[in-house]
């Protein structure tokens, strides 16, 4: 009869525990549903995807959108244009607070309809003050109101972005053209970035965005305006699915007062460069050293 040694018992116990732990760890694999395919579970970080894998991911998102939302969309992967550094400027002297930019963003970027969310928050400010704590974002009266001015704030695409630094899984990063992007499929929803942003530019998807199929903007980008899943963070991406094809962002086109100037900072003949050279521009919370790409000016 074999002697049951203490060593064998411990080894057996360890093996059993190990097997149980392994089974537990693999348990999600038993629960794959329509919502989370094996492909999606095993998908790599955007920057580690091979061209073939990326292509497969884009097509999968299109199929998912069709199956889950009944909308035919095309999801592209627009890469930065060599020699282009994006910059944005906003003329506070002419902005009248009409929120057309926020509305355009809402539709362009497939935001949840019930919350009327947008990447742009328009602050109604006291003239002579830059105090955001006493600014209103929910005003609903004829604008511009006496004694007020209006400051739309969106992601400033900081060159030294605190949100990027705090991400524990590197799901957000700064691209070569200056746009800070998020891999929504890599984001774990910890919201550290939301807390780190001094401009409150990031939003969290508390629930599955609700949009009617016919209202979904079918012109989508992987890193930009595809419908984001529940539980991930999102933010303004300078409409990269438009701007990396040479077009203006939706907010710039929607502005009825012409307050928004967008362009390539490296092009000396661009309007954005003329503004930076000739207007007295400033950035929000300059003292934090975030070095925003988004400038404000009065003229």
């Amino acid at each position, binding site marked *: 009869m074999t002697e049951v040694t203490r060593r064998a018992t411990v080894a057996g116990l360890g093996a059993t525990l190990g097997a149980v732990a392994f089974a537990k760890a693999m348990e999600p694999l038993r629960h794959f549903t329509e919502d989370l395919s094996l492909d999606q579970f095993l998908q790599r970080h955007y920057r580690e995807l091979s061209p073939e894998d990326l292509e497969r991911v884009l097509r999968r998102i299109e199929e998912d959108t069709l199956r889950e939302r009944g909308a035919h969309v095309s999801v592209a992967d627009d890469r930065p244009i060599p020699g282009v550094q994006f910059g944005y400027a906003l003329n506070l002297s002419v902005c009248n607070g009409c929120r057309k930019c926020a509305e355009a963003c809402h539709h362009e970027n497939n935001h949840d309809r019930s*919350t009327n969310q*947008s990447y742009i928050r328009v602050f109604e400010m006291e003239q002579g003050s830059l105090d955001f704590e006493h600014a*209103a974002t929910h005003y609903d009266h004829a604008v511009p109101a006496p004694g007020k001015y209006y400051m739309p704030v969106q992601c400033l695409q900081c060159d030294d972005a605190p949100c990027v630094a705090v991400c524990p899984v590197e799901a957000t990063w700064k691209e070569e053209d200056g746009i800070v992007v998020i891999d929504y499929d890599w984001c774990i929803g910890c919201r550290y970035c939301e807390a780190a942003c001094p401009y409150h530019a990031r939003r969290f998807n508390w629930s599955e965005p609700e949009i009617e199929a016919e209202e979904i903007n079918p012109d989508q980008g992987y890193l930009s305006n595809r419908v984001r899943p529940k539980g991930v963070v999102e933010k303004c991406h300078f409409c990269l699915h438009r701007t990396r094809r*040479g*077009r203006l962002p939706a907010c710039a086109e929607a502005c009825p007062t012409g307050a928004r100037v967008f*362009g390539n900072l490296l092009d000396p003949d661009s309007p954005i460069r003329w503004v930076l050279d000739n207007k007295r521009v400033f950035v929000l919370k300059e003292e934090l050293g975030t070095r925003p790409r988004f400038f404000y000016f009065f003229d």
Partner: protein
Amino acid sequence: MIVRNPPSLGTVDTGLRDAMGASVGVSCETCHDPAHPDALARKGEVPQDFHGGISVAHGELGCASCHAPEDRTRLRLADGTTVPMREVLQLCGQCHGPKLRDFSKGSHGGGRGFWDRSRGPWVRDSCVACHAAHAPAYPLVMPAPPPNDRFLPRAGHEELAHD
């Protein structure tokens, strides 16, 4: 860069309504004979029994400041030369030089299309697309609806105090 200038002066809104309720417009030559120019009102005094659709609130300007008396379909520059009605940038820029400069450099007035001119046009509006020529101050507007943040009151209700 493409600037969408007004094609020409269409008709002057008389402020009257036809039987169907549509506003009645007439062309300038209906009343003003180009061969026999008459004097134009000097200081924004619009004949109230006609030109009723026009209200003038443009500084000290009168009709003849911009409209050529001898040809109501053309604009008159300060030096007396006349230009087609579409040349509003040239006309307005005589007084609003800094604005014309900002417009030409791309920092005033909106536009649609492409920031990268090698890929497509940048379509821009002329002065009168946003500013009514006779009363150019930008009007008050109602804003698009505010966001419905989870922790804030709904649109149209009291602002949450931040104390």
